[in-house]
Structures are given as structure tokens and as C-alpha cells.
């Protein structure tokens, strides 16, 4: 699905800026276990950056419940559908 790919690419650029790491590659299975510096502080930065990038409001409690990037992508698609 094209939408999936698009969102994944945007997320990747967000992560690359937050972690200042050009080599980060995301797929739907990536989780906090895969990126060393992904702690609660960076989680907040990611949430805020995503809100800006995708022009949405995210509920941090919900986001903290995601298992992996795939959940995040699905969530972003579903919010978009509603707007």
C-alpha cells in the first residue's frame, strides 16, 4: 500500500532528525528495542515531531501503548481517514 510506504518514509525522516542518525531504517517491526537511545524523553520528541509532520494531535498514552512502528503507521492512517 502506497500510504504505508509514504508514512514510513516520513517517520524515518523524523527519527533520523530526532536521533541525528542518517542510517536509521524503519520497518513495521521496528520497536524501541532496536534503537539504543529510544528512551522516554526521545519518545516525547518523536510524538511532538510526528504531530507537526503529520498535522495531527496524538494521545501520548495511546502512542506509548504501541508495540512497534507498524502500530504507529496504522494509527496515523486511521486518524487521517477521519479528517
Amino acid at each position, binding site marked *: 500500500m502506497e500510504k504505508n510506504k509514504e508514512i514510513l518514509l516520513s517517520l524515518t525522516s523524523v527519527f533520523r532528525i530526532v536521533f*541525528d542518525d542518517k542510517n536509521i531504517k524503519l520497518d513495521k517491526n521496528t520497536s524501541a528495542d532496536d534503537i539504543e537511545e529510544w528512551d522516554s*524523553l526521545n519518545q516525547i520528541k518523536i510524538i511532538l515531531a510526528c504531530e507537526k509532520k503529520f498535522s495531527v494531535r496524538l494521545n501520548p498514552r495511546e502512542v506509548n501503548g504501541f508495540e512497534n512502528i507498524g502500530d504507529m503507521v496504522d494509527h496515523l492512517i486511521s486518524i487521517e481517514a477521519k479528517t
Partner: protein
Amino acid sequence: MIKEELKELYSFLQNPAFLDLEVEKAMQIAKRFVKNKKKIKKNYKKIRLALLSNFNLSFTIESLEYCLFQRGINAEIFIADFGTMFTELINSNSWIYKFKPDYILIWPTYRDLQELSKGYKAEALFWNSLWKNAKINNIKIFQILFDFPPFSILRNSLNSNLSIMQHIKNTNSELMQHYSNECEFLNIENLIMSLGTKNWHDFRMFHLSKQPYSFEGIPEISQYLASTLAGSLGNAKKVLILDLDNTLWGGEVGDLGKDGIVLGNETSEGEGYISFQSYVKTLNQSGIILAICSKNEKNVVEDVFINHPDMQIKYDDISCFVANFQDKATNIKKIKQFLNVGYDSMVFIDDSEVECQWVKKQLPEVTTIRLKGDPSDYAMQIDRLGLFIKNKITTEDLKRIKSYKALKEIEKVKKSSRKLEAFLSGLNPKIIIEEVYPYALERAVQLLYKTNQFKLNSTVYSKEEIINNKSNVLALRFVDRLNDYGIVVVIIFDFVGKKLKIINWVMSCRVFSRNIEYAVYRILKRIAIKSSCNKIFLEFVPSSKNTPAAKAIKKIGFKRVKKSNIFQNNLNCKVKPDNIVIKNTEMFGRYNGKK
């Protein structure tokens, strides 16, 4: 890969406007900086700084460290665990004292007030009691004054004694008045004003991460705090180097004359320059040394300072006055040597992108600010960077200014000419030869009538005369990578026998030092050859102002004919390469035969 990232980091470090970056980029660069700090070899002041607050400072530290570094301070920063501000200060064995800081910065907010019921004196005493251990250990203390809560209803509290607003105002006042010998207080009112309630009180952010201000506010807050601390640590900038044309007044005085520059209450632009000059004057009055670095004839610009009724800055306010046609980096070097300060305490301001890029390249330690837009905005463009913030102005500062009565002209200096030439050709300069099209008529006439410094004689053509002699009038437009300078040269010519006669040649002083006279020689030579002429001649009538023209024509091979004002060129002068691309428009094809 890594080299590119370091290169990007270095280029960001040279830009004093961290607060203008998109917050995500700012955070990324700050993060990169902290990671690579050890690789950057700079002999900066090293300090150990402990930050104490009851809110979460962790997002802000890297940016603060970055901004401090930009101001010449290599800070190792320690923050206590969230919510432990009081215990860390009171407990003499706490982590912050183990860290052995040189400085402690206490950052309370209105949420941390303790003695609302007992009043401001009790409040001040409470905070005073927190400094005891620091004083015993000889640690210098900074404390940020209290901010106000955002809700308007609290401002209108009927019982003014219990009003939180009153309490805060009085506490801040009491602290400053009676405790300044024990602690240096930092006033952040200007910061809060600039950020506004929206960014200073971000409740969502507070509940999300315990940071009371917005994420977006981090760069500006970091830069402000770093500037304030830098000022207190002796790193405030000391010297402001000013360009003149389009910086302190509108227009080029070399072209317009003292009475033609825009400075005065007749126009909004003129008012803008007056107001900017007043700001600069205020800086001077608080101890900042002023220097002038202008590409102009010295007596022309001195005349403005001395005789223009609307100048706010006086000639005597300038400690070092440099006006010549050398490149600005060389001149700034001389200013530095004369004033005997470090490059890192100098700030250079200019409206020209070319000048700023050159100085940034040659003197990276000088803080260069390119002024943009309206003169009404100039003061803020400088002030918001906090380069000159100092908590105290000493009599020493004021004395220092008077001691530099400098008005020695900077001697002719050996230019680093190869570097300069390379830089100028790197700007991809182009000349476009145009006929005087209707839109350019106004500008051409203005150049002919108003230019003083580069003009061969007083012969001018009116609008009608130009229109009637269109094919004998050239207008040259100058463009480079950074700017379109518009029409800067007008040449009126004719053919007399086998000779090409230059009736007049004017050039805007805006583009002196860009080697355009060499390109003009190439153009004239081509016209001459295409019309089978073997000589070019002109009449040069010296005036009090047109020495630059005299110098230029001699550089391109014109020699005086006996004892007259006629100068002749035999077309065999070897001129230095100007690296300017000349674009011929179709009209050039006309010059295939004599008129």
C-alpha cells in the same frame, strides 16, 4: 559521512541565530555538538555549571551547552533529578556539591513560591537560606527571577495583599535590592515577552514532560540564557563594527551625496535609520566600542558624521574610523589590532551579503550579522541575539571608549589578494550589456546626474537625449550569485574619425572593488575593434570627488595626451583578468561598422 556532518556542525556554529532554527533542527545540531564536542579544538573557558529547577530541564541542556559554546564557554552541565531543587541545595552532601560546580543556576518558577501567606520578605529570606552551602563552598550563584502565572483572573485579585502578582513583583524587587551581593539575579522579562504566553506557559507540555515552556521555545530560551550567562562571565561582545551605506543611512553616499542619503523624519525609511542609530548610540553609552568599516572616500563619510543634521551617532562616538576601498576583512584586522581586542569580541554588521560572506570566511571568529529588510527591524535583529548583554556597566567600560580616540587612517595594507580574487570570482559575476530600455531610463539618468566619484566629466544626457541617441548609450547591469545590483554603469560614446570617443562613463560606487573597470575595458575594446577603430579617447576633468575614476582609467591603459585633459588608449593594455562573464545582448551585433 561523518566528515560531512561535522562540516555541517561547524557551519551552524558560525551562525549566531540559533533561535531562528526550526526546533527539530536546532535540537539535532545541539545533540550532534554535544556528541562531538571533544573533537572541536577550541581553547574556550571551561566551566562546571549546575542547573537546579523543579521542572524538567533535560530537553534544554544540549541546546544550552551549544549556545554557551557559541559564546566561547565550554560548559559541563549537571542537572539534579527532577523535583529535587530544594533538597539538593539544602543538603550539603548532595550530588550538586559532589559535582563541584563553579556556578549554580537556580531556576524557580511561580509554582515554587513558598511564603505566599507570610509575604515577600519572608519569601526572599527563604530563598536566601538555600544559598548557604554554595556560599560556604565559594560557588557563585545565579538565580532567575520569578515569572508570573498566566491566568488573567489572578491579576485582578481584589485583596492586593494576598495577590500572587503583587507577591511576585515584591519578591523580585526585594531580592534584587537586598540580596544582590550574595546572588546574581537574571531578569527574563524580555525573554518571556518575546516568547509570549503561548510559548512560555505550555500546559500540555508541562503535563506531558514537566517542562513548563513549549518545545518550540527551547532554542530561544537556550540562546537567551547562554547570552545572559556569557555576559556575566565576561564574554559579552565589546566592539560593534558598522558599515555605513544602507546600514546607518539609506543609499550610497558616494552616489547621492550627503544631502541625498535617506536619513531624517521625512520618510518612514529615514525614520527607521534614525531609530537604528539611536539604538547603536545606546549601545555605545553602555560601554560598547563603535568602529566604522566602510567602502567610501573617508572625507565624504566624515562629512556626513560631522555635518548631517540627522546623524544620531557623532563623530566622536567612533573609536576607530576606517573608510577606504580595501576589502573589509583586511580593514577589520587593522581595527582589531588598533583596539587591541580579540576577534571573538567583535561584531560586524552590514547589509551586503557579499561583504558578510567574505568576512565570515576570512575571520570566522568575528560574529557577522547580515542586516535584512527594513531599517526599522535592524535594532531587533541585533538585540535578539543577546551579544552585548551584561548585568553591570562599569566606569571602566565607559573610560575605555574615551581612550580610543582613533582617528588615524588605516594605511594601505598588503591585501591577501589571491584569496580575495578567488572569492570574488566564486560569486560568478556577470555584466549584461543593455540598451537603455524604457524601464532603465530613470536609473540611467539618475546615475549620470548624481554620481560624483566615478564620472569622467560633467557632460550628461537628459532623458530625451538618451532616447535620441539610444545606440550610443550603454547601460551595464551587474549580477552575481548573491545579488542583482541593477544598472551600475552608463557609457555614452561616439565615433570620431578612426577613434572611439567616450563622452562619459559613470559607475555606481556600490560596485567599486568588483573589478568592473577591467570588464568595461574589454567591452570598449571590442566596440572599437568592431568599428575598425584603433584608439579610444576620453576627456577627464578632475573634480574634488572623482579620483576613483582617475585611478580606474589609468589602470586600464589610458594615458594623458600632452598637457590636456584628454586621455588616450591604444588598445594594447594588458589588464588583469576580471573573471566577469560579459553577456552580449543582440544590440551588440550592431557594431560591425562605423556609424
